[in-house]
């Protein structure tokens, strides 16, 4: 406390009292490091994400041409655990295509993938086209092994066995910060056999995203809105497909789009503009569990700082 008093001697009285009281309040709550004095009422949310892990459970062998010694769920577990220790206000998400790619899927139908993701404490995932590879029934059969939420706002599963098992969105609360997450999937017709997706209805992802972001921002009063997308990163203008960049440009109130499907390795997260010229972050981390994406959000409750706007460091 002496150090703090020395430092703040020259400050205006009002400022001094605010700082001291804040520090006192934090100290009363207990256990926070000295770092807290400087950051004051800053809150910190960490989002970790994967996409297109495609049943890659073991690390790639050293003989692999492209991904030698990379990946591996047991290593991912270490990384996730250490980040959760550093910041307990962490969410772990996956943008779909958990299934298909190694014999683990062919022999166990996704059981091991879901069990391991539950052990890693995944919070929510969206559904990729390959997650239909054993049909809606195959996905349904593995749900008991998944201790995380399945989110999809533009797949209507009402007339399928998955009805009520997939939610359009979920609001997570971490350190009093409300984080609204909704899921989006790619058009299934032509990509997935009809006998696999059965009566699943695909709805326009842009219209749904506009609805979802309004619900999460206005009705649910979320501080953060995240879209978990399996639409793909970007398509040529002549393509009918809608990618994450197009989605970002035609919606508002979304802070982060976590993508998948196109197995896009981005050198760093993309910062793009939404329909009202605000920044949106779009990220995707390749495939096969080779990378984990990490996005840190810092919030400030100080009135004076609010007008300064946000900075994005990628």
């Amino acid at each position, binding site marked *: 406390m002496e150090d703090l008093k020395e430092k703040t001697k020259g400050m205006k009285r009002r400022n001094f*009292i*605010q700082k*001291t*009281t804040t520090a*006192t*309040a934090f100290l009363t709550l207990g256990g926070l490091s000295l770092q807290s004095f400087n950051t004051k009422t800053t809150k910190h949310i960490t989002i970790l994400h994967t996409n297109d892990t495609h049943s890659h*459970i073991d*690390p790639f062998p050293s003989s692999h041409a492209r991904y030698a*010694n*990379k990946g*591996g*769920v*047991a*290593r*991912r*577990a*270490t*990384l996730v*655990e250490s980040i959760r220790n550093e910041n307990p206000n962490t969410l772990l998400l996956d943008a779909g295509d958990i299934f298909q*790619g190694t*014999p683990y899927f062919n*022999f*166990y139908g996704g059981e*091991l993938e879901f069990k*391991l993701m539950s*052990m890693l404490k995944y919070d929510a995932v969206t559904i990729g086209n390959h997650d239909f590879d054993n049909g809606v029934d195959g996905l349904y059969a593995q749900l008991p092994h998944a201790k995380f939420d399945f989110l999809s706002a533009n797949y209507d599963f009402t007339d399928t066995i998955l009805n009520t098992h997939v939610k359009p969105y979920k609001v997570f609360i971490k350190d*009093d910060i409300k984080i609204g997450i909704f899921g989006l999937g790619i058009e299934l017709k032509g*990509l997935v*056999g009809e006998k696999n997706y059965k009566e699943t209805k695909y709805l326009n992802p842009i219209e749904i995203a506009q609805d979802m972001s309004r619900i999460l921002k206005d009705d649910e009063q979320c501080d*953060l809105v995240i879209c978990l997308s399996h639409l793909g990163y970007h398509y040529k203008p002549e393509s009918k497909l809608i990618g994450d960049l197009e989605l970002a440009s035609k919606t508002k109130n979304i*802070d982060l789009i976590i993508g998948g499907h196109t197995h896009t390795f*981005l050198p*760093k*997260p993309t910062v793009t503009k939404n329909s009202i010229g605000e920044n949106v*972050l779009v*990220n995707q*981390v390749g495939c096969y*569990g*080779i*990378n*984990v*994406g*990490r*996005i*840190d*959000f*810092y*919030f*400030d*409750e100080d*009135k004076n*700082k*609010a007008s*300064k*706007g*946000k*900075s*994005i*460091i*990628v």
Partner: protein
Amino acid sequence: MKKFIILFFTITLLFSCKNKPPHLIRIEGKQLPITEEINSVRAIEDYIEPYKQKVEKEMTAVLSFTPIELNRDDGMLESSLGNLMADLSYQKANPIFNSRTGENIDFAMFNFGGIRAGIAKGNITMEHAFNLMPFENELVVVELTSNKIDELVNYLITENKAHPLSKQVNLIMRENGFDFKINKTPIDTAKTYFVLTSDYLQNGGDNMNFFKNPVNLYKIDYKLRNAIIDYFKETDTIKVKLDGRFKRKN
């Protein structure tokens, strides 16, 4: 008095926190590679182990034997593995198609890129079948008009690649033109043709657009990989040769 002021401000501050929405001031994004420098969580590794052992045991099961190496690069416009894949698919799918429609498949065609791995001389294991065909592609039969067959032939000539074709096909490229026959018969413009392929290619994969919008589409409900596995299981020794089904003659 000083203590009172501090308490007052603390309460005011806490209260104002509750009512004022927090402002997002900073976002930091980065990518964390999963490398061998990161230790594994032992409990996860141990959990995976029994699954891994069972998979490894299944994958090393011997299904068949090949006296020669099978790959997709040993011919110019055909290959040992391409010929084998197309012929075995025809052999496995035609009885199913025939029992359902009373018709026979005219020929099978796949894509060069779809042959994902070669098979070395010796025992053929389950793992070979999975490496050869890691995808869940299903066999389908498309009924095509002769115009679409022309497109298909033009595609083969333009591509100039060893796309897998079954033995019913005979395509000879010459200096000025080509000969195309199915079962030793030229194309009949009044007839439609039944071509076996995969659902991936039927959907326009590898730009095989002639497979899109066929006269009729018949699903065989049989995965290409399962056809390969079943064929290997019932065939003691694989016999395959380059027979010039697609070639250039100058």
